[in-house]
């Protein structure tokens, strides 16, 4: 899960936030649009999380403007 960092302009989130009231949803606030990257890696949960964090740091996210959070989704089927 990759999100625009706090304090960084999020034009996408703003656009969605401004569009929702027109559809009748006028109590929605703090909309942020980020990216969701899902992948399968082998290994136990601890090492997988560490490796994916490393991938985020190096490729998947842009640490200058994005923050990331890695969630393990359990073993692949």
């Amino acid at each position, binding site marked *: 899960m990759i999100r625009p960092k706090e304090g960084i302009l999020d*034009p*996408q989130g*703003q*656009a*969605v936030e401004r*569009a929702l009231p*027109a*559809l009748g949803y006028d109590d929605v606030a703090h909309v942020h*649009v980020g990216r969701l990257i899902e992948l399968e890696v082998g290994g136990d949960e601890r090492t997988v999380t560490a490796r994916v964090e490393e991938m985020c740091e190096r490729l998947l996210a842009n640490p200058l403007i994005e923050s990331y959070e890695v969630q393990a989704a359990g073993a692949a089927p």
Partner: protein
Amino acid sequence: MSARVGVVVFPGACDEEDALIAVNGTPGLEARYLPHGERDLKGADAVILPGGFSYGDYLRAGAIARFAPVMEAVIEFAREGGPVLGICNGFQVLCEAGLLPGALLVNESLKFVCRQVVVAVDSTATPFTSGCEPGEQLSVPVKHTTGRWFAPPKLADQVEAAGQVVLRYAADTNPNGSLRDVAGVANEDGNVFGLMPHAEHAVDELTGSTDGLRLFGSLARHLSAVTA
């Protein structure tokens, strides 16, 4: 008297003036803008949703524009059989609004692509292609990031079977990876037509080609017949 064509202007529109110029350069047509906040079409005989990046294309191309106030009137106009043309971003809006089948996805290259392409007219059963020859080839530019037309297989078959594919990229020139080389589709009745190529950027030899006039010319003839 010229037929009136409304050119819808969303915030973030880019090619609305180009559409206006193209329409006004077509004998028998006269264009005026329809701002996104309008609730009626001001007597337009046909509507164009032009290219650009409505609402920045944030979220998904065309997704937010589809809810602009003017779209209610456009949808109603389309349901009543009025001619509606969506070019590029306009095509995306029409798909998002459910007026056209399928959806537009990010190009296979993931990149914006701006180039002249050749498309063949597959169906002349729309007000925008009625003056073309079946199979006629047109040289027009494309310029988009999100132009890969897609429909689930069953829907795609239906669309083909009903003759709703209006334009296809010539062999080996598909710029975005669209399904079955589709460049433009119409609704079942043929009155709503969306295409990725920018016909409005092909109306003057000086700036590239005049093949886009085949589409605008068809519309002019169609409108003069129905309004006569």
